[in-house]
């Protein structure tokens, strides 16, 4: 399952990051690393996804959300 498939309001655990090396670096820097739990807050226009991680909200475009493998909590 990928983050792009998760419905709004559900919490999942990131299992793998498959985006471009730059995007993977950025995702890890801001805290979206394998093993971390996130909740999908909002599905926005054109497939963008907003997830809650800790107290912050992080917006991801459709491709990046598709490249993040997640597991149910």
């Amino acid at each position, binding site marked *: 399952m990928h983050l792009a498939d998760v419905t709004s309001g559900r919490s999942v655990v990131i299992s793998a990051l498959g*985006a*471009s090396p*730059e*995007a993977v*670096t*950025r*995702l*890890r*820097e*801001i*805290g*979206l*690393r394998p093993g971390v739990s996130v*909740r999908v*807050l*909002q*599905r*926005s*226009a*054109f*497939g*963008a996804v*907003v997830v*809650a991680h*800790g*107290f*912050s*909200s*992080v*917006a*991801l*475009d*459709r*491709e*990046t959300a598709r490249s993040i493998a997640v597991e149910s909590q």
Partner: protein
Amino acid sequence: MTCPSCDAVRSSGPLGDASVLIVGNPNVGKSTLFNALTGSHQRAVNAPGTTLELTVGTWRLGGEAVGVADLPGTFSLDARSVDERAVADALDGADPHAVAVVVLDATALSRSLYLLAQVIGTGRPVVAALTMLDVARDRGLTIDARTLSRAVGVPVVTIDPRKRPGAAELAEPVSRALAAPRPTERARRAGPFAEADVVRWFAWVEGVMAQLPPEPPRRVTPSDRIDRVLLHPWVGVPVFLAVMWGLFEMCTRAAGPLISAIAAFAGGPVARAVSSGLGALGVGGGWFEGLLIDGVLTGLGVVLSFLPLLALVFTALGILDGSGYLSRAAVVADRAMRVIGLDGRAVLPLMIGFGCNVPAIEATRVLPHARQRLVAGLLVPYTSCSARLTVYLLLAAAFFPGSAGTVIFGLYLTSIVLVAVGGLAFRKFVGGKGEPERESLVLVLPPYQWPDLRTLWHSIAERLRGFVREAGVVIVIALVAMWALAAIPVRGGYALADVPIADSAFGVGARAAAPALAPLGLGDWHVAAALASGFVAKEVAVGALAETYAVDGQGRAPALTASLKETLSNTSRGHPRAAALAFMVFALAYTPCLATVAQMRRALGRRWTTIGIGVQLVVAWVLGALVFQVGRLL
């Protein structure tokens, strides 16, 4: 012989003698803290060879003036992008005594700690400033500064720069760090980090977090509720378009009247006052008065005329940025701008550009990456500003009386196509070393908040000062040069500043350049002269045409229209409409105005400005020739 302090001075570059470097993630209140420390003693400087702006200022610390630099917000020192490299270089190259103040966000502590780990790794003395404690407390999280300090091994102070200055809390630990013996060996590195280091830092962050109370579960915040609307798939886009429309309207409605009112004031009452003053001093009437009034004063008038519009646009941008909406705009417009390889936020400068290119160039600074700012800065001149509309209106009314609206609509459409095609082209050719062509959208959305007025005011004042200081000089010098060209007689034995335009250096130059415009059906020196004046400002091009024909003020419009028609009929050998279209397309695509050039030079540097102008001229000529050659067959 080596000299460590010489090396430090050389490598510190624009940061000068800054002894305090403020580092932190984006949107953690760095600039607010910086303003609290330095007050009005600050100025913006460009990092060498980049479009990146750093702010440096002075902090009165215990009776001593201490240099402070506000570095761009970053998540890491991994030198992958120009901006991150600039922060890394600043930390590497600054004075060895300089202290890094790392601003930590209590609501996103692990992210802040990852950067802190890297800054500590540089070997520089570090003081951590913990902010957003009130927000964290509201969400049920308390962090004790002493516990945190013990866990991270550097002094930690709690500050709230939006309510209290923060200077008092930082003064003692920073003074102590400044007085500490200078580190003998500092880690210097080049290129991206090794994976082993990254893993070690993540482990360190987790170790620190384990010593702090666990984060309580997240509750729905007011920002989440606002985002449900502003990022809703069906509501977000219309709201975004409405905001963009508002910006565009503000610029188009304000730009024309504001600019012409101030220019008229400088050219009217002020010029008359200067003229009579010179007369009273006994030096009026000659070339000196011409130089002063038509050169210097006109230049100052142009600089002054842009200030209210710039202030207006910077205020609007400051509010959009400071409130947190700008990040949402990036999400909503991401898909559309991705097509031309730009960040969603690039819509803002481009939209402002349709009103006026001058503030639009400055607005590219809202973009997060150097390459993005460069591409957007090169694209802005292709947005058809309201000054170009005056040229379209004159020519469309004269040559296409029945379908002027359609023609003008077509020109705006051409402008949009030029921006899109330009985006695709620049994407290929404009490289940022090591920067990806287009970053994925991975964006931390800051909570919505009221913009901090002090930060807003400082940023507006600094940008206006920068415009006057840097762009102003370029504008005045160029206008004095234009005046000189028109005042120097080349033939006919006239006196200086008392020469018909045709016999001046300007007129003779236009005559020499005219054949180059023949493929556009515009091979006439009047037209060449008007286009050359249009380099100063597009609305001037119309006046310049009138001037070269020396039509009288009374019957200007019909006389100008008639002579325009006659000229273009001659130059185009019977295809005046095709030639008029070519003129409009040329006016659309070539260099917008002197003030835009001055702004480009400020934001993009001399090299890219020269390349940008060159490309504009080539594009304008090729498009104009294409339009004329196809148009005359129809």
